[in-house]
């Protein structure tokens, strides 16, 4: 093998969008190929775990790890790749903060498995067969990875050097980061300090061209209920948009086409809990109840009525950041094994 730097990309609990986004850097992929040797990239080339296990520690120069830690296999791979990589990158929202897989933290492992193997209308499973971690068969013992109760982010199981947020990260941002790495490796420039790369340090609003006014929101609408004005801030029109509490860098792509920001770049730097910030910001600008207008009971009723137009606050505000939030998961009554 050549002495080019070694690149790996691995896919844990995720959808594959990150790989597509990576390939979406178009002809730059040739530059990547020119600079790197691919050491491990199951999505595009055949590798075995044994190959990786065979590498000396720190053999891989850069490992792009995407996907959340959902199963024991994900966790083992995280440990393995950490051990074999000089630089480990949490690539994309799943690895960074749990993303969509971590929404299942709002329910139990049992309920998740039930949905997949039992309750789904397209499933026919009369014998109620569920995957078992250990199965005895005449030929011996079969093992399946353990399905965790709580989805974790990559940095909750191993030390992470860099994070590229986004679901998926924007190709131009990926290329910018890879370029920086390439420059560092080829010209001996020191790497940037660890942390989030390939994104802005300010919320999405900064990149959003929509006109913004003082916010007073009467109620919220589901996207199908209204046709948004093309020029005015979506939030002001009662369309949920997480742009106010979400790290920019994507170019405000969603709001520009009339779809509220979902929050995939995670919290703005310095914020610990994206969802809590949405709670406080949204509640702050709801237009209801001036002093002296209503008695306390009526006031509370009116506020509650408005909040009824936000059907799933936890799922909305923590859509991408559940695993990285302060509370991380729901508490299931009777589940506490403390």
């Amino acid at each position, binding site marked *: 093998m050549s002495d080019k730097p070694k690149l790996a990309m691995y896919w844990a609990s995720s959808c594959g969008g990150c790989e597509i986004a990576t390939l979406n850097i178009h002809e730059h992929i040739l530059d990547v190929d020119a600079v790197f040797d691919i050491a491990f990239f199951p999505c595009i080339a055949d590798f*075995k*775990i*044994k190959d990786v*296990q065979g590498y000396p520690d720190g053999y891989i120069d850069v490992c792009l790890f995407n996907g959340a830690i959902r199963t*024991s*296999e994900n*966790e*083992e791979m995280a440990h393995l790749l950490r051990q074999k990589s000089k630089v480990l990158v949490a690539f994309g929202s799943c690895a960074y903060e749990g993303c969509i897989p971590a929404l299942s933290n*709002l329910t139990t*492992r049992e309920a998740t498995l039930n949905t997949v193997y039992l309750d789904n209308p397209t499933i026919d499973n009369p014998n109620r067969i569920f995957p078992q*971690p250990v199965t005895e068969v005449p030929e011996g013992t*079969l*093992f*399946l*990875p*353990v399905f*965790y*109760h*709580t989805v974790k982010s990559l940095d909750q199981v191993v030390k992470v050097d860099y994070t590229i947020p986004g679901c998926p990260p924007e190709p131009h941002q990926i290329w910018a980061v890879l370029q920086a790495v390439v420059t560092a490796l080829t010209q001996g420039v020191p790497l940037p300090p660890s942390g989030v790369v390939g994104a802005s340090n300010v919320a999405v609003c900064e990149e959003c061209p929509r006109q913004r006014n003082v916010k007073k929101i009467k109620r919220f609408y589901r996207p199908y209920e209204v046709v948004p004005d093309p020029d005015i801030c979506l939030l002001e029109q009662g369309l949920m948009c997480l742009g106010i509490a979400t790290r920019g860098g994507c170019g405000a792509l969603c709001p520009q086409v009339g779809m509220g920001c979902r929050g995939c770049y995670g919290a703005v730097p310095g914020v*610990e*809990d994206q*969802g*809590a*910030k949405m*709670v*406080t910001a*949204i*509640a*702050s600008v*709801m237009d*209801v*109840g*001036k*002093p*002296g207008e209503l008695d*306390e009971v009526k*006031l*509370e009723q009116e*506020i*509650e009525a408005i*909040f009824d137009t*936000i059907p*799933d*606050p*936890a*799922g909305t*505000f923590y859509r991408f950041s559940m695993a990285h*939030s*302060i*509370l*991380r*998961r*729901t*508490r*299931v*009554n009777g*589940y*506490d*094994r*403390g």
Partner: protein
Amino acid sequence: MAEKQFEPLIIGFTCNWCSYRAADLAGMSRAKYPPNIRLIRLMCSGRMDPEFALKALRSGADGVIITGCHPGECHYLEQNYKALRRYLLLRRTLKQFGIEPERVRLIWASAAEGARLAQELTKAVEEIRALGPLSWHNVVAADGDRPLELQHLEEVAA
């Protein structure tokens, strides 16, 4: 031996102008309430960031109490209305996290209501005591997710 009763730990957020002074007054009038409550002074209930409540609940508190001036009596005119709205939306969100609404409460108390504040705090302690421990570290950690031995994984993946 009788089983030791559960002692809940509660963090209370107070407004500098009303409820913190009510707590002062409770002290001056020697009103009693259980030592399960530890107070934090803010300038106004409008400063109450939901993150504070989450942080407290995660870090070992069994309940959170937010206190402020009665509606219409805010020192800063109307900021307690914002506190009320944030509290109500937070409460909804926390419900989805499996946290009983009784654990996160809002109490209005004017500077003159020392005795009432003491009563309300006592009531809150007893009601949260009845709910049992929250122990968030157990909620997150104790899920039995002990990773299997590496060789098992090898056989599966290879």
